[in-house]
């Protein structure tokens, strides 16, 4: 039986504001338990919430970046349930008037774009952390109250790979906005998946399974792959699919059922009377839209166009916000007329260095100015391109400047025509046979003569110029 996989993803993102959603406690990962808490985020009786302006701005920026319609009138609702990591036993969230709806982002396969719908992006607060021990559970409320946004995708993803691509693109866009760490390991990005299978060609959705406990994008992909297999096998057997939540066990590579829910949860949502309504007007939206940085896709297109790069090459440069910034800055301050030369250095030698050191281009121990200085030596013919690569490596290792290293290693090429001509004359005199060979049409002989000049100059002659001079000299005489 052929099945179509249908996947929807729910991503929770912690916003990287300085303080929590509803109080001024700072957000700081890894702090000792209950050191970033106050009566408000602890939900002490009598306390009241006031929402963080920066969190709202960040959330609107995300909504704009994903092409969502921003709700003009939005409000907070209480989601009521009991759990020890929830100080008030309700979460301040949004129910029927979320901040934004109907957005999308693109994923690409074989250069073909596929639009993935985003149902909604809404605001909520995070809960505390529980540690389970023998016979008891320990609660740390440092995380309680951190502002979250929840991004819900339409069930438009049709394979675990598409889900992976969606997450990768989502993360890269959010990183560009600089509103969240997007770090699954630190928990600032969390993802739950909903997956169902249906007979190929059917329009009805199958019974969905909720997957939790994936700790990396790969984990999401693996968990979904496992589920596709498990569900297909079950359906083939004629078994009944029951709506349930399953946890991914990364070690064993399987999903395990949580206890079946005793019916749907009743969260008794109602508008939170402690918070006002919010009117998001066009002015506010436009002001924030202006603050949006150029997003990855736009930057990619622009790099391809402006610098005549292939998509492959352009992708390398925009792969991360820092790399894009570094590259763009290099290109911007490069004094030469042909920017392509700078670009070639970035996607060539610099990328090599980055890869061999397993870091990003922008993380290499070299500044834009230093790089440009090195390139200058090559452009002026003062060192050969080959030597320059070696110097680059040394610059990164030692932190020394191009000039220092070139002088130290005695790499300065001789490009002075007068000086070179002298050497050329002596080489011609010493290699009459090759000269005759060249004059009689054996172009290889030129290479040999260039080689002799290089030898006589202890490798310092600029081979290109030598070639030109030799060629002219021999054809003229």
């Amino acid at each position, binding site marked *: 039986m052929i099945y179509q996989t249908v996947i929807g993803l729910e991503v929770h993102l912690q916003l990287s504001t300085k303080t929590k959603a509803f109080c001024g406690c700072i957000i700081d990962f890894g702090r000792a338990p209950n050191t970033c808490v106050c*009566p408000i985020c*602890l*939900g*002490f*009786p*009598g*306390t*009241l*919430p*006031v*929402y963080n302006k920066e969190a709202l701005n960040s959330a609107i920026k995300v909504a704009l970046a994903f092409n969502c319609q921003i709700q003009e009138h939005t409000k907070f609702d*209480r989601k*009521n349930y*009991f759990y*020890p990591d929830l*100080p*008030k*036993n*309700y979460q301040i969230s949004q129910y029927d008037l979320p901040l934004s709806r109907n957005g999308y982002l693109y994923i690409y396969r074989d250069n073909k774009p596929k639009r993935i719908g985003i149902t909604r992006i809404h605001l909520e607060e995070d809960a505390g952390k529980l540690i389970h021990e023998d*016979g008891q*559970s320990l*609660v740390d409320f440092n995380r309680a109250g951190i502002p979250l946004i929840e991004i819900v995708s339409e069930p438009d993803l049709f394979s675990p790979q598409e889900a992976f691509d969606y997450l990768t693109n989502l993360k890269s866009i959010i990183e560009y906005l600089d509103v969240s760490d997007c770090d699954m390991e630190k928990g600032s990005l969390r993802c739950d998946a909903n997956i169902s299978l249906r007979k190929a060609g059917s329009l009805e959705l199958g019974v969905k399974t909720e997957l939790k406990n994936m700790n990396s994008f790969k984990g999401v992909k693996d968990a979904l792959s496992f589920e596709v297999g498990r569900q297909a096998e079950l359906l083939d057997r004629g078994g009944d699919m029951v709506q349930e939540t399953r946890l991914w066990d990364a070690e064993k590579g399987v999903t395990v059922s949580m206890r079946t829910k005793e019916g*749907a949860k*009743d969260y*008794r949502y*109602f508008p939170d*009377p*402690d*918070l*006002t309504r919010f009117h998001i007007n066009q002015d506010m939206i436009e002001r924030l839209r202006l603050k949006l940085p150029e997003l990855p896709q736009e930057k990619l297109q622009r790099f391809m166009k402006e610098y005549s790069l292939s998509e492959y090459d352009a992708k390398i440069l925009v792969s991360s916000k820092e790399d894009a910034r570094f590259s763009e800055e290099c290109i911007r301050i490069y004094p030469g007329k042909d920017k392509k030369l700078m670009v070639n250095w970035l996607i060539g030698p610099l990328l090599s260095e980055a890869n061999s050191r397993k870091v990003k281009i922008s993380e290499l121990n070299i500044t834009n100015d230093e790089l440009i200085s090195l390139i200058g030596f090559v452009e002026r013919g003062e060192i050969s391109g080959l030597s320059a690569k070696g110097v680059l490596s040394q610059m990164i290792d030692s932190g020394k400047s191009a000039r220092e290293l070139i002088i130290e290693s005695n790499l300065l090429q001789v490009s002075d025509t007068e000086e070179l001509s002298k050497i050329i004359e002596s080489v011609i005199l010493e290699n009459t046979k090759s000269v005759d060979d060249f004059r009689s049409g054996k172009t290889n002989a030129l290479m040999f003569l260039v080689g002799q000049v290089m030898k006589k100059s202890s490798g310092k002659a600029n081979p290109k110029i030598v070639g030109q001079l030799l060629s002219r000299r021999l054809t003229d005489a």
Partner: protein
Amino acid sequence: MTAHELLVRLKSGSVASEAVQEALYARIEKVDSKINAYVRRADFRKNDAVNKKQGLLFSLPVTVKDNICTEGLNTECCSKILAGFCPPYEATVISKLKKAGAEIFPLKANMDEFAFGSSTENSCFGPTHNPWNLGCVPGGSSGGSAAAVAADEAIWALGSDTGGSIRQPASFCGVVGLKPTYGRVSRFGLIAFASSLDQIGPITKDVEDAAILTQAISGYDPNDSTSVDQDVPDYLKSLTKDIKGLRVGIPKEYFVEGMDSEVKSVIEQAVNKLKTLGASVKEVSLPHTEYAVPVYYIIATAEASSNLARFDGVQYGYRAKSDNLIEMYKRTRAEGFGDEAKRRIILGTFALSHGYYDAYYLRALKVRTLIKQDFDRVFAEFDCIAAPTSPTPAFKLGERASEPLKMYLSDIYTISVNLAGIPAISIPCGFTKDKLPVGLQIMAGSFNEEMLFRVAHTFEQNTEWHKIKSSL
């Protein structure tokens, strides 16, 4: 003595602040075992040094209801489930009072548990008795505050009002009680009952005191999203003793069956007094009055069911013994909450639950709009509304305790005010044959507390009711 009288003497030095405190302690020693206006008296420790700050309020002690957070002083809402809770922070109104030089009295005032009640019989510390008749209730839920002020166990006090909890006990105890406009006074630090209805307000011996205390606690608070950023006028300037030409509306729906005949006649005489003082009095209509109590009991209990979910034994208060979490939650809340609290939580949870939300909660919110519109219409043509505070005088202890619905109906004249968010004041205006106080309620448009003080003060200064004290 009233606060303003004491302030004069404190400023001149003829009375020392310590003497004021001592007098209160002595009075409490003498009568509170009969009245039970204050709680946890056994844990009482005298204030080490009376704060000699100058400030507007010259170290005058203010009695605070047990649901207003006072740092370092237990705040338990008179509930077993908050036993031992000592807040590590204080309510904004407390900070404001301290800044103005007031002393926070070290004993808290009794109340119905979590403000659920109209008689102060739902306290885990036992009921408060009405100083006018110890066999009667003082009203609720701020019964302790009202009784203390009436019995001179307090100079003045803070209460909270969600459906009448300041005004009704003020009326039962023959003192002044004001509920400010919703948003006038910060709720930060008030342990919430119904977030869209609660307000903190003064309970005092006369209107001038109410004006001073309201002034001191009012104002915008950035810690409360529902507090309004509007200047606080000088309320003392409203004490003009002149209501000539003011248009007073008398709601006809308030004078129907169920009202005690003595209360009716006392109120009628009070209204006549307003006429003789120059006000023009006319009948008005608040057509949705009969829906106020049902709407209130849906909205207030729904909000309360959510606000009280945090009382679960995890971080503070009472925790029942158990070896698993769910059992702990259920037993803690079963053992820690009193009957009325449980009843309201169940009712509120029901009103919000799946399948009932539209028919109850959502519908109630819509009717609330209609109730507010009733008042908007009247205030477009009238300066204020005059009405009884309660349909009956103080009833006997135990009389309504087993009939919740009957208890709820005693809020009938006060509840609409909270639903509409407008301010209202109750002032003493007479007595029944049994010498039980009757309260006159004045209501005004949003942020028009000045009108309340003006009308109430004029009435008060032209009558003697506020000077009559109980024999206790």
